[in-house]
């Protein structure tokens, strides 16, 4: 079930269609001047609300209230710039009759790349403002004001409403950005707080174990020193044994009848004996 009330505004008449496809709700009213449109639109919304839920409003403007043009020889600009170009050159393309116009334009197929043609449409801004005011008075969200029939992609919202919506979008984006930034900051602060808390816990645990750690490190150092000392003395004893064994071997090989003049018995080097016969 659609909750969008579709309103068609044509010359002097306004027709509203709402409700589901199976049980449609329709109402027609006549209006003489744009200023009546605000009140009538609000009443139509209220009337529909008595039977159906209405959450949004979409207004279609009949051909009799529009000026349609197909513009050619336009400079190749982006769609937004095209819309701005047509709006600024309104008197050039549309009859004004002393009224401000709400305009819109879109490129026709193949128009944006080179000098192509665009479809442009305009309506009295007073009428568009009256529709916006009616939606505001209802109150209901106005989805768009579109030209009827082939008005696909065109919007006739008045400039003030467009600006208001643009500001709203920007504000929403800014709020979203701020919220995201705030979320990041809060998250980082929470992480920082958790890290600091963990750091304090580890620090206090380290402080508790500091004395034990120092004692153990000192004990380890002393144990290593003691082991090195025992090993050094053991090595010296083994060396002494080797030296004595070498000396014993030297004595055994010496001839009985010699007079030593000089002998050198280095532990690691070659044995040097200078001997004289007795």
């Amino acid at each position, binding site marked *: 079930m659609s909750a969008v009330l579709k309103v068609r505004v044509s010359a002097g008449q306004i027709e509203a269609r709402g409700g589901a496809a199976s049980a449609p709700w329709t109402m027609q009213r006549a209006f003489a001047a744009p200023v009546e449109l605000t009140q009538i639109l609000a009443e139509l919304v209220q009337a529909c609300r008595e039977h159906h839920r209405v959450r949004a409003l979409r207004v279609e403007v009949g051909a009799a209230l529009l000026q349609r043009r197909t513009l050619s020889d336009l400079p190749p600009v982006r769609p937004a710039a095209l819309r701005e170009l047509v709006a600024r050159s309104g008197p050039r393309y549309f009859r004004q009759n002393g009224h401000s116009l709400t305009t819109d334009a879109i490129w026709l197929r193949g128009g944006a790349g080179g000098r192509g043609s665009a479809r442009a449409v305009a309506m009295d801004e007073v009428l568009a403002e009256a529709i916006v005011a009616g939606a505001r008075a209802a109150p209901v969200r106005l989805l768009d004001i579109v030209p009827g029939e082939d008005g696909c992609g065109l919007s006739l919202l008045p400039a003030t409403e467009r600006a208001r919506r643009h500001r709203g979008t920007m504000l929403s984006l800014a709020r979203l950005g701020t919220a995201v930034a705030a979320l990041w900051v809060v998250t980082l602060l929470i992480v920082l707080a958790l890290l600091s808390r963990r750091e304090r816990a580890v620090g206090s645990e380290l402080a508790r174990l500091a004395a034990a750690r120092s004692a153990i490190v000192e004990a380890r150092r002393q144990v290593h020193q003691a082991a090195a000392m025992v090993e050094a003395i053991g090595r010296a004893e083994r060396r002494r044994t080797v*030296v004595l064994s070498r000396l014993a071997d030297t004595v055994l090989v010496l001839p009985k009848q010699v007079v030593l003049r000089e002998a050198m018995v280095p532990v690691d080097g070659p044995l040097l004996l200078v001997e004289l016969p007795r």
Partner: protein
Amino acid sequence: MTSRDRHALRLGALLVAGALLSLRAGPWLHRTLTATRARLIEQHHLLSETQRLVAELPILEDSAGRLAGLVAGLAPRLLAGYESGTALGDLAGRLSTVAGRHRAEVLSVDALPDSTTVGQLGRLTARARLATDFRGAVDIVAALGRGTVVLVPEAIRLVAQDPAAGPEASERLEVELLLSGWYLPGESLP
């Protein structure tokens, strides 16, 4: 103040807040977080190392107990004295005693420079000159080797005092012994 002014003010405030956030608060927060994380990792390593040490305490106690017995057994094998001079005196005394028993005469005992240390032990290296015959020299070295104090003859040099003496003359040698031993500088064993 128009709505346009308010909008401009809001935009300006937003820009200032954004700039402060991205140029000051953001980098500060990043630096602080990085530093805190690095400190935490370092402390974690230290803590796990400490916990490992504490867990190894029984093994350390066992090793210390066994080593204590071994270290206590070292005392008789060291030269007496808490400095190199007194250790040299102890070495000279032991050498004189041994020399007296083997018909030798101690001519001199001099300490040589030696800065070797192992743990708390210091090594003493000395050159001793004795006058004796070949048999006496061998006996002295053998007696030093049998002693409880670990004295290592690093080199032995024998020189005949009178190379021109005839066969009927008694053998007289000058024995130069390069000896090393260990002593404990300081007060006591660990």
